[in-house]
């Protein structure tokens, strides 16, 4: 199968992993980037969302080898340097998280939707955010403050 080569958070990574290795396992178990979480086994909760070549994907639903050569960004690599990304900042300011487990996926999905809507020149209003969060489940917040966080970050991104 050969070495799997890709970029994770801007760093070149080369690993010899079996064919069945999921991207989330590569991140969590091989690279020890444990900010990407696993909350289900049917691809629905979205706790594992990362960006592959700038697009949100579910890392538990993608083989590591299938993203060979790609640029992967995880929650750990979202912010430049030691600061916070505006989306991370907004989640803190708007109390967009409680237990924090779904949060990395929410933030990565939030960044993705803001970028897509901005690129398409579309207005990301509250109903749009709620619809775009179809693939992210939170059990704590009732979504209210997640929606507010994304709205607030969108204005700053």
């Amino acid at each position, binding site marked *: 199968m050969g070495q799997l080569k890709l970029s994770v958070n801007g760093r070149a990574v080369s690993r010899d992993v079996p064919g069945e290795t999921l991207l989330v396992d590569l991140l969590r178990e091989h690279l020890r980037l444990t900010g990407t979480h696993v909350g289900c086994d049917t691809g*629905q909760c979205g706790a594992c969302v990362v960006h592959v070549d700038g*697009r949100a994907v579910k890392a538990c639903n993608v083989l590591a080898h299938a993203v060979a050569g790609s640029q992967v960004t995880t929650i750990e690599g979202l912010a430049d340097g030691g600061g916070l990304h505006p989306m991370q900042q907004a989640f803190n300011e708007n109390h967009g998280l409680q237990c924090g487990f779904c949060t990395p996926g929410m933030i990565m999905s939030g960044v993705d939707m803001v970028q897509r809507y901005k690129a398409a020149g579309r207005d990301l209003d509250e109903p749009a955010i709620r619809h775009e969060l179809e693939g992210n489940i939170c059990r704590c917040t009732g979504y209210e403050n997640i929606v507010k966080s994304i709205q607030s970050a969108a204005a700053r991104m």
Partner: protein
Amino acid sequence: MYATNYHRPATIEEAVSLLTGNDEAKALSGGQTLLPTMRQRLAAPSDLVDLRGLPGMTGVSAGDGTLTVGAAVAHADVAGNADVLRLIPALAGLAGRIGDPAVRHMGTIGGSLANNDPAADYPAAALALGASIVTNSREIDAGDFFQGMFTTALEDGEIITAVRFPVPEKAAYAKFPNPASRYAMVGVFVARTSAGARVAVTGAGADGVFRHSAMETALDADWSPEALAGVATPADGLLSDIHGSAAYRAHLVGVMARRAVAAAG
């Protein structure tokens, strides 16, 4: 996940040879259905042959009254494609409601059609629009392609490379999602084509996607939601599960069909 070998062939020929004669090998496209199935240990392919990087399977092209979508085009890229939006906006709308945003970034039209999940959206579009499923060896009319739940006309080693949609006069898709999975519990795609009205129903049929000939007849006579008012959908042969009985699904087929026709204008 059981152990499996991952392959990323460079050519269609290489992909065919990896898939041919190996019952345990499976083609992998976006993997948004296959991988959860494998994670739940309900599938154990010995080899996965990734088709997404193959030449000639990407991109959307328009011409000659048709719209051709490469098999490896992701749902998000169909949803946002200018040609699709211009020529068959209903198809773009359908693609933009499959799964969720992250799923739409990975899942592909070819993968969806080849899997023929009874609750998938694309089969309804392909059947209603009278699409041709283009493979490495032939073109298959959608009417012949879908052969019951998870079953298609694809032969061993045959790979979908593109889907060619005749551009309809008008079309629309109305979907009633399963509240839990968000797959279609009932999805109805209606199209007015040069050959007449076509209505395809997904999510409801125990044998997968099907055409609703009674509705087509009614719409041929009068393309309007009202024309469907008296058209019955028998509950026989429809799925029944904890989310919806066959009778409820039959009722929803009518509601979704009327809404689709209304949306198509």
